[in-house]
C-alpha cells in the first residue's frame, strides 16, 4: 500500500534553517489571492510520503495538489487505508514521513520513538449514508435496527467502527448489520453500489461523495466526534513543510471544505 520512499535531497544548511524554509514555504503556498509576502522560490526537494486515514482521501489529494503546486520540487506520495492498517504498516517499517489518523485513539499503537511532532488538525462526526433513492426508507438512526434494513459498518478494529459502536451504545440500538468493512471508504462503497441500505460513515465522506449518497444526520447527543491528529515521522524539511501547510489557514480551509470541523 505504501507508495514510495521519502528522500532527503536538501543541503544541510537548509536543514538547519527549517524555520526560514517553513516561512518561505507557507508564503509561497499562497495562491494569487494571498499576498505573497516576499516569497521567493523555495529550496524544498524530494518526496513526502503521507499515509492518511481513508476518510481523508479526497481532502488530502487536494491538499497534496496544492502543496505540490506551491513547491515544484516536492512530490507528495499519498496512501490511504484504515488508521489501524496505517499504524500497523508504520510500526512494521513502512516508509512514511507523515501519518494522519482518524481520531487520537488510533495513534496509541504507534511506535512513540518515531514521533517527531503530533498536532490535531480537524474533527469529524458520524453520519448515516444511504443510496440516493433511499430504498430502506431510513429517516433516523432508529431505522437501522429494522430487520429488513441492510446496514454496513466499519470493522470494530478501525476508528469509524469504534465510533459507530459508541453511538449505537448511546442510542441503545442494535443495528441490523450485514457486513463490517475494512475501512470507511469500503463501507461507503457498499452504499454507493446500492448493495446496502445504509452505512454509518463520517460526515466528511458524505460531503466527499458529492451526491452519490444521501446523508442522514445523527443527533448531536448520540453522535460521536473524532479529533484527527497529524504526526510527523521525519526530520525532512519537506515533510515538516507539508504539515505546516496542512496546519496553515489555507490548508485547514481545504480540509474543512470537505466537511471536516475545525480542530
Amino acid at each position: 500500500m505504501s507508495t514510495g520512499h521519502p528522500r532527503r535531497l536538501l543541503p544541510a544548511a537548509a536543514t538547519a534553517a527549517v524555520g526560514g524554509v517553513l516561512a518561505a514555504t507557507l508564503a509561497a503556498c499562497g495562491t494569487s489571492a494571498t499576498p505573497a509576502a516576499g516569497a521567493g522560490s523555495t529550496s524544498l526537494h524530494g518526496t513526502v510520503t503521507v499515509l492518511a486515514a481513508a476518510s481523508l482521501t479526497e481532502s488530502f489529494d487536494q491538499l497534496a495538489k496544492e502543496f505540490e503546486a506551491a513547491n515544484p520540487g516536492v512530490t507528495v506520495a499519498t496512501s490511504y487505508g484504515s488508521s489501524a492498517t496505517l499504524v500497523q504498516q508504520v510500526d512494521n517499517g513502512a516508509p512514511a514521513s507523515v501519518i494522519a489518523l482518524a481520531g487520537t485513539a488510533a495513534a496509541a499503537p504507534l511506535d512513540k520513538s518515531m514521533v517527531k511532532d503530533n498536532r490535531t488538525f480537524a474533527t469529524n462526526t458520524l453520519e448515516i449514508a444511504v443510496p440516493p433513492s433511499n430504498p430502506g426508507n431510513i429517516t433516523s438512526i432508529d431505522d437501522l435496527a429494522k430487520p429488513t434494513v441492510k446496514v454496513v459498518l466499519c470493522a470494530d478494529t478501525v476508528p469509524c467502527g469504534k465510533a459507530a459502536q459508541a453511538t449505537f451504545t448511546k442510542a441503545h440500538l442494535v443495528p441490523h448489520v450485514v457486513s463490517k468493512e475494512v475501512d470507511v471508504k469500503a463501507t461507503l462503497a457498499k452504499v454507493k453500489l446500492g448493495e446496502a441500505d445504509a452505512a454509518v460513515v463520517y460526515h466528511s465522506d458524505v460531503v466527499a461523495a458529492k451526491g452519490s449518497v444521501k446523508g442522514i444526520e445523527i443527533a448531536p447527543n448520540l453522535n460521536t466526534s473524532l479529533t484527527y491528529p497529524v504526526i510527523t515521522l521525519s526530520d525532512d524539511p519537506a515533510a515538516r513543510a507539508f504539515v505546516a501547510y496542512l496546519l496553515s489557514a489555507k490548508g485547514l480551509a481545504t480540509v474543512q471544505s470537505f466537511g471536516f470541523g475545525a480542530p
Partner: protein
Amino acid sequence: MRYAAGWRSRVALGVPAALALLLLVIPLVALLVRADWARIPSDLATPTVLPALRLSLTTTSVTAVLCLVLGTPLAWFLARSEHRATSWVRALLTVPLVLPPVVGGVALLMAWGRNGVIGQHLAPLGIQIPFTTVAVVLAETFVAMPFYVLAVEGAMRGLDPRLESVARTLGASDLRYLRTVGIPLVLPGIASGLALAWARALGEFGATITFAGNFQGRTQTLPLLVYVELERDPQVAISISIMLLAVSVLVLGVLRGRWLR
C-alpha cells in the same frame, strides 16, 4: 577444463534456484519464528475463531461438492470435444485463475448484486445474495472451479479413447460409461482436483470481502478474520495463519506423489 565448466554452470543455475527457494520459504519460516507457540491454543480459542472456522469448513465443503457435481461433466465435455470453440472455453476457464480475486468480487457484484445483471431480477423475488453465506460459496466456487476442471480434464484426456468406443458399441450411454468406466479410472485426478480446489477456496479473500462482505458467523471466513485480527491483535492473526498454513501443508502432503510428482 570440463570439470571447471561443469562447476560454473552449476553455480549459474544453483544460485538463482536457491534464491527462488529462499524467496518462497523465508516468509513461511518467518511466520513460524514470529509465532508465540505457547499462545496458539488460547489464540485459537478466541471467540471469533470458531465461527470463522465453522464457516470456512462448510463453505469450502459446499464449494467442493459444487465443483464435483458441476465441474466433472464440464471437464468431460472439454476432454472429449474436438470442436474449435473448446480451446476458447478452456481459455475462458483459466481467466479466474489469473484474475486478481478482488476483480472477481467486483464481477460477482455486477452479476449477483442487488443492482446486478442477474441480481436485479432476483431482488423482487426476495432473493438477495450479497452479504450472505451463499455469496461466500459463489466467490469460492468462482476461484476454485477452474482448478478442479483443469485437473480433471487433464486426467480424462489421459484415458484410452478406445474404452469409450468399446463402451458405446456395447450400448452404454455417455452417462453410464462415465459412471462405470470413466470416473473410476480418473478417480485420482478427481481427488487431487478436489483437494486443490478446496485449498484454493479455503484461502479465498479478495472476492469474498468484496462480494460477500465481512460478518462474523455469516461471511467472515478464516482469511478475513486474519486480516481483521491483524489490526486488533497481530499474535492472534499469526496463530490463525499458522493453522491455515498447517492445513495447506497437510493437503499438499496428501497430494504428494499423486499430483506433485
